[in-house]
């Protein structure tokens, strides 16, 4: 029904969406998920021709969307956006009647029986008949979104686009509207494409899910069960996400992995080896827990370096993209002398940072504690040297942790 081929788009030369290829089938519910700012709403605008593509094509039933007039588009697709602006106090009925504009037979076809019937039906479907004579300006957020949906339904289009139409509604209104959309889809074969942030609801009602990554590429496209897996979602959203099965419906169900345990390490002298974002969360948590923290060597401009300097921690920094110099290593060594615990959170090893592991070995010799966090032989790009060094460290008494929580817990057991 809608065919997207090699679609590219960017604002002012920046590339936002890259080489998208997919087809929307007639009568399906397709949900677009993805991190903030990845171009979900932009895609909806491209699909309905409100924005022009910078490359590739969007075709509706074989015809390019660029060739459609505003009226022809409005007869094919109705849109509900997240926020509906109401500057003028139209009555709900008049507001919904605006949806009939594209279906007018002639200039003066305002109040024909057909028109009135369609408006009344849309009002009834959205349970707005009791509010029909109220000005839209006094409606609550939920009522207003219902009115916007009623207006879209009154357009009587084969396709509905919903751009986070229900995301700021209460759970009851959200379920109510979703139920209404499902009925619309089942009974009238209305094709629905929606942008959403509600994983569980999307999983429960969609036929397919289109998942974007931050680079504006399709990370996955398929049934909810295929797309909404822990590994895929964790990778796209760069957060720990666990997926279970909804006990009633069998659809994927997202379990938030919040950590509510509080850790205190007051005054514990800790040094952190990290880089490339591997230390960001642990840095913050150690800092909040009151540890006496230092950090480095880290490359300047690295997100870990930024975090550490922003938190005002003693930090050894190195020029970007340079192997660690002996001077910096010596400074780090001096810093390490006063340390109780050395945490190795660096994830990726290469010739440039291999020397850090020697520092760790020296710390063990000095009787200091060394904790290794999430080390993996596949991350060794120093031809096995790094992993060999890590294995030696373990033999010398360094402790390995695969989970940040366990490591933090261990730290709390130490006395200052």
């Amino acid at each position, binding site marked *: 029904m809608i065919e997207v081929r090699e679609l590219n788009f960017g604002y002012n030369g920046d590339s936002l969406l890259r080489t998208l290829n997919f087809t929307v089938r007639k009568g399906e519910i397709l949900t677009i998920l993805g991190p903030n700012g990845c171009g979900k709403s932009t895609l909806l605008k491209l699909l*309905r021709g*409100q924005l022009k593509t910078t490359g590739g094509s969007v075709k509706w039933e074989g015809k390019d969307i660029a060739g459609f*007039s*505003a*009226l022809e*588009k*409005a*007869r094919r*697709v*109705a*849109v509900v*956006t997240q926020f*509906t*602006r109401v*500057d*003028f*106090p*139209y*009555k709900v009925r*008049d507001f919904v009647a*605006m*949806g009939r*504009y*594209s279906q*007018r037979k002639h*200039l003066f076809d*305002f109040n024909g029986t057909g028109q009135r019937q369609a408006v009344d039906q849309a009002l009834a479907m959205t349970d707005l008949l009791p509010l029909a004579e109220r*000005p839209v300006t006094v409606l609550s957020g939920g009522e207003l979104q219902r009115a916007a949906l009623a*207006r879209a339904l009154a*357009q009587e289009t084969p396709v509905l686009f919903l751009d986070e139409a229900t995301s700021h509604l209460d759970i009851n209104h959200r379920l109510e509207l979703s139920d209404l959309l499902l009925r619309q889809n089942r009974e009238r074969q209305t094709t629905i494409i929606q942008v959403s942030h509600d994983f569980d609801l999307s999983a429960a009602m969609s036929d397919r899910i289109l998942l974007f990554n931050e680079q504006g590429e399709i990370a996955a496209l398929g049934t909810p069960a295929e797309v909404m897996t822990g590994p895929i979602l964790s990778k796209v959203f760069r957060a720990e996400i666990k997926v279970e099965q909804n006990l009633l419906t069998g659809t994927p169900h997202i379990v938030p992995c919040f950590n509510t345990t509080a850790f205190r390490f007051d005054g514990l002298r800790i040094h952190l080896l990290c880089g490339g974002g591997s230390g960001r969360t642990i840095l913050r948590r150690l800092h909040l827990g009151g540890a006496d923290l230092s950090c480095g060597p880290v490359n300047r401009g690295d997100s870990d370096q930024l975090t550490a300097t922003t938190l005002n921690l003693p930090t050894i920094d190195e020029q970007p993209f340079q192997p660690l110099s002996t001077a910096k290593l010596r400074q780090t060594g001096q810093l390490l002398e006063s340390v109780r615990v050395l945490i190795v959170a660096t994830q990726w090893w290469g010739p440039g940072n291999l020397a850090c592991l020697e520092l760790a070995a020296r710390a063990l010799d000095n009787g200091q504690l060394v904790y290794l966090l999430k080390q993996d032989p596949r991350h060794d790009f120093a031809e096995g040297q790094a992993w060999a060094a890590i294995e030696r460290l373990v033999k010398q008494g360094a402790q390995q942790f695969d989970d940040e929580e366990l490591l933090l817990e261990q730290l709390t057991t130490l006395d200052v």
Partner: protein
Amino acid sequence: MNKRSRNTIWKGLLLLSPLIALFLCLTVGSTILSPGELLATVFSSDRQALNTTIVWQIRFPRALLAALVGASLSLSGVTFQGVLRNPLADPYLLGVSGGAALGAVIGISLGLQSPLLIAVFAFLGAIAALLSVYLIAQAHQCSTHTLILSGVMIGSLAAAILLFLLWRAPADATRQAIFWLAGNLALANPDWLVWGALWFVIGFILIWVFAAQLDLLTQGEESAADLGLNVARSRLILFILAGALTAGAVAMAGLVGFVGLVVPHICRLLWGPSHRILIPFAAFFGASFLMLADALSRSIYAPAEIPVGVITALLGAPFFLYLLQRRGGL
């Protein structure tokens, strides 16, 4: 008394207002006629009587002129407020007043005496200002912000040139210009009525035909497009229509302020924002409002006349503030 019945009373008063205003227009002035005298004059067959001349040759055409100007300004105010989605928009926002004033003052400082020529100059000035605003804003699909900002700037530019011209002009020309700038229905020649009426009727019908488009435009550009409206084209058409109505009104009566700002608001409060209903009522009430203001301007210091723009502001602003205070919003 509840809100609904109070509304009904207001609506009734406003619907009767043209009759009341017309009655006042015909009776007050330097010679005050009693209702009986007015009736006698209207039904008398004596074409030569002084009262007949006053009523039919002077006061009636002038009342019609006031009605036309008032209706035009109010109608174009409704249109601009809808198109620009801005409750502060008025017919003069987009540089029309500046352009027209500049045109008229150029005419006056060239030493032109004929009111017709000055009206033509004012008209051309208004059109030139609208055109330049449009050409500047067009580069950005006539977004409302660009329209408003370029309108305000063109207006300021015209005002600066105008002040320079007035500074250089001889004193009597300056006085004439000020009279024009404050709005004055005495300038017009009754012979123009036919043309003014034609201009207004065409504008009114076309804008009314576009009522549904205006409704959609108030919903914002994106929603309007999603509902099937060719936004740029409708906005351009309405912009031209409202601009042309304003230019016509300004050419006939100078800068009569306030009608185009206040009357649409009052009508929207009473009849709601739906343009199919709002447009005729706004035109209707705009007409009676200016007739009433003109009757007052001719009678307070009779036989002298206060510029009618002074009266419209003195009447309109307090009434508007009263409504604002009662309702807390528009």
